[in-house]
C-alpha cells in the first residue's frame, strides 16, 4: 500500500504539487493523468524521492519513505521512463542487471534473473543479451527498460510516460504486456500519462491532476459516470464517453440468454469491440463463445446501447 499524505512541492512561490493525498491499494495499477505542467511527474518522482517534497509524507507499506537513504529506497522501487533511459555503453544484459548488481546479488542469481526477464518480455536471451541498446527497435528498447526496472523484484513500479515514444500498434501491445507482467509479479504500478485512452486501458484507479491538485481519484467507470469537474469531463472527451464506458467492461458481463446468427465472438473482448463487430456485420445480435469455445448466449445492439447510456 502506498499512502501519499498532504504532499506539497514548491519551487519558490509556485506549488507544483499542492496538498495531494492518495491511497494506492497494493497490486493495482493507478494512472495519474493530467495536462503538461499539472505536476503529475513531480508527484511520481516524490514517491522514490528523486524530488524531495516541501511538506507532507509518503509511506510505503506503512514505512515513511524517508527512513532510508534515497538511493537505497530507489533500488527497491522500479523506475521506467519515456525513451527508456538505457545506458548506451552497456549491453542489454548489463542494463537489466544494474540494480541486482548494485544490491550485490550473486552472479548466478543475476544471470538467471536477466534470462527470466528477457524471456518474459519475448526477447531471446542468447540473441538480445549481448546486444547494445542502439541495436534494438524502439519497442524492444522500451521492453528492456521495463525489464531493468523489474530486475530486483520491486513491489512498486513507477512509470513516467513509458509508452510515449512508441507508435500506436507497438504501444497497444506494450500496454497488454504490461498488464500481463503486472499480474505475473503482482506489482503495484503508478503510471503517469497525458493520454486518457491509455489511462482507461490500464487503470484500476485514475487520478486526474490539474494545476498541482488531484481533482478526481476514482475508478474508470466512476469517473465516466460522475466526472468531478468540467475539466475531468473535457479530458475524457464528451464524444468518447459511451465508447469508453463500453471499453472498460468485457463482453462476458453483457451476455443475454438466447441464440443469434453469425460468427460467434469471444466473451473476453471488450463490449466496445463487440459493438464494432455488430455494427460492421450489420446484425442486431451475435452469439457469444465462452473461454472454452461453447456458445453461452448472445450480445445485442440494444443491450449494448443500454449499457453505453450515461446517468439520467
Amino acid at each position, binding site marked *: 500500500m502506498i499512502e501519499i499524505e498532504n504532499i506539497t512541492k514548491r519551487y519558490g512561490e509556485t506549488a507544483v504539487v499542492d496538498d495531494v493525498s492518495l491511497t494506492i491499494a497494493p497490486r493495482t495499477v493507478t494512472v495519474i493523468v493530467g495536462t503538461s505542467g499539472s505536476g503529475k511527474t513531480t508527484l511520481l518522482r516524490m514517491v522514490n524521492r528523486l524530488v524531495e517534497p516541501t511538506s507532507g509524507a509518503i509511506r510505503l507499506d506503512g514505512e515513511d519513505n524517508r527512513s532510508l537513504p534515497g*538511493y537505497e529506497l530507489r533500488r527497491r522501487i522500479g*523506475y521506467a521512463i*519515456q525513451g527508456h533511459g538505457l*545506458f548506451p*555503453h552497456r549491453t542489454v544484459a548489463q542494463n537489466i542487471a544494474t540494480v541486482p548488481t548494485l544490491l550485490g546479488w550473486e552472479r548466478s542469481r543475476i544471470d538467471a534473473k536477466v534470462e527470466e526477464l528477457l524471456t518474459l518480455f519475448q526477447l531471446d536471451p542468447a540473441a538480445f543479451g549481448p546486444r547494445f541498446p542502439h541495436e534494438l527497435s524502439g519497442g524492444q528498447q522500451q521492453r528492456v527498460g521495463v525489464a*531493468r526496472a523489474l530486475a530486483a523484484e520491486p513491489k512498486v513500479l513507477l512509470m513516467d510516460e513509458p509508452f510515449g515514444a512508441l507508435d500506436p500498434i507497438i504501444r497497444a501491445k506494450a500496454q497488454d504486456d504490461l498488464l500481463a507482467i503486472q499480474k505475473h509479479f503482482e506489482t503495484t504500478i503508478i503510471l503517469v500519462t497525458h493520454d486518457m485512452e491509455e489511462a482507461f486501458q490500464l487503470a484500476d484507479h485514475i487520478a486526474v491532476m490539474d494545476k498541482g491538485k488531484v481533482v478526481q481519484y476514482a475508478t474508470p467507470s466512476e469517473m465516466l459516470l460522475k466526472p468531478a469537474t468540467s475539466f475531468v469531463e473535457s479530458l475524457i472527451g464528451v464524444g468518447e464517453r459511451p465508447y469508453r464506458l463500453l471499453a472498460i467492461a468485457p463482453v462476458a458481463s453483457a451476455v443475454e440468454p438466447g441464440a443469434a446468427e453469425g460468427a460467434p465472438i469471444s466473451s473476453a473482448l471488450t463490449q466496445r469491440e463487440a459493438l464494432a463487430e455488430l455494427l460492421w456485420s450489420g446484425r442486431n445480435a451475435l452469439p457469444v463463445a465462452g473461454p472454452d469455445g461453447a456458445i453461452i448466449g448472445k450480445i445485442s445492439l440494444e443491450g449494448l446501447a443500454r449499457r453505453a447510456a450515461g446517468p439520467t
Partner: protein
Amino acid sequence: MIGVPGSACRCRRRADTAGRESGLKALRFDKLGAIIAALALGGAFIAPFATFRANRIVAGEAKTIIEALPLNWSTGLLLVVLAAAAVAAFRSPVPLRLVAFAALAGLAFAIGVAAGFLTPAGNSYARISPASGFWVMLFAFGLLAADALTRLRPAPFVRIAVLVAVLAFVGILLLSGSWDGLSLLKEYASRVDTFWAEARKHVTLALGSLVAATIVGIPLGILCHRVTQLRDGLLGVLNAIQTIPSIALFGILIAPLGWIAANIPGAATIGIRGIGVAPAFVALFLYSLLPVVANTVVGLAGVPRDANDAARGIGMTDWQRLVGIEFPLAFPVILTGIRIVLVQNIGLATIAALIGGGGFGVFVFQGVGQTAMDLVLLGAVPTVVLAFAAAIVLDAVIEMAKPNNRQAEAR
C-alpha cells in the same frame, strides 16, 4: 522503314560514346592527386634535391637529382617518382595509391646515397643536406600516403601498425648508417649524449605536465559540471591563461617561483627555481588545463539526460553514476582533450629551452644562434615526429574508446 535503321544507328553511336566515356572515366583526374603529382614533379625536376656545403655554416650549392645521385640511382628515383605521380594524378584504385610508400622509401634511400656520393672522399667538413625538392616530394608523397590510408578507412590498430612500421623503417635506416653522411646526422653524432638527455627532458616536460593537468583538470571539469556557477568563472580564467604568450608566462612565473624557491624549505632542492624546468613545467601545465577541463565539461554535458535520470531513478549513488555512467560516456570527449594537450605540449615544450628548461628547443635555439640550419632541424624534426606519432596513436585510442566502436567489435 527509313526510321528503323536510323534509330538503330543512333543507338550504336550512343553505345560508342558511352564506351569512350567509360574509357575517359578511367583516366579522369583526381583533384587532390593532380596537385600532389604537380608538386612531386616540380620537386623532382625543378627544385634542387640536395645541398652541398663546404662546411656547416657557409652557403650551399644546390644539386638536382641528376647531379646528386649516381646515374642508376637518379634514373631509378625519377622513374619511381613519375610512376607515383601518374598514379596520384588519375583516379586510380585506392590500394594502388599506396605506391606513395614506395616513393617515400625511394626518397629515404636516395638522400642517404646522395650524401655519400656528394661528399668528397676523406672530407669531414663537407655537409650534405636535403634541399627543397626533397622536402617538397616528401610532403607530396606523405600527403598521398595519408590520403590513400584515409580512403581505405583502416581500423584503429591498423593505423598504429602502419605508424610502427614506418618508424621501424626509419629506425633501421638510422641504425644501418645509410644516412650517416647527412649533415643532420653529423650534427647528431657530435651531440649524442646531450641529444638523448634533452629528448628525455622534452618528453618528461610534455608528458609530465599532461599527467598533472589530467589529474587536476578532470576533477575540476567534474566540479564545473556539477556546480554551474563555477563553470563560467573557471573556464574564463583558463581561457585568459591560454591567451598569454608563452614567453610572457615564463616571465610572469619567474617572480612567484623564485619566491617559493627562496622561502619554502626544500623547494629549491627539488628543483624549483625562477628559471629552468619548474616554470616551463608550470606554464605547460597551465596551458594544458583549458582543453582538459573544457572537454571534461563538454563530455559530461553530452551524457544523455535519460540515461542520467534512469541511473538516479534506479538507485545509483552520485559516485556510482559518475564512475559507471557519466565518465565512460564522456571518456572519448575527454580523451580528445588529452590528445589536443599532448600534441600541443610536445610542440610548446620546445620553448622551455629559452629559460633553461631543456628539451629539443635547446638545439633549435643553438641552431638559430649559429645560423646552422641542420642544428635547428635536429631539434625540430624529432619534435614533429613525436607530435605526429602522438596524434596518430591517440586518435586511434579515441576511436577505440567510442561506444559505437566497442559495439561493432562486440558484434
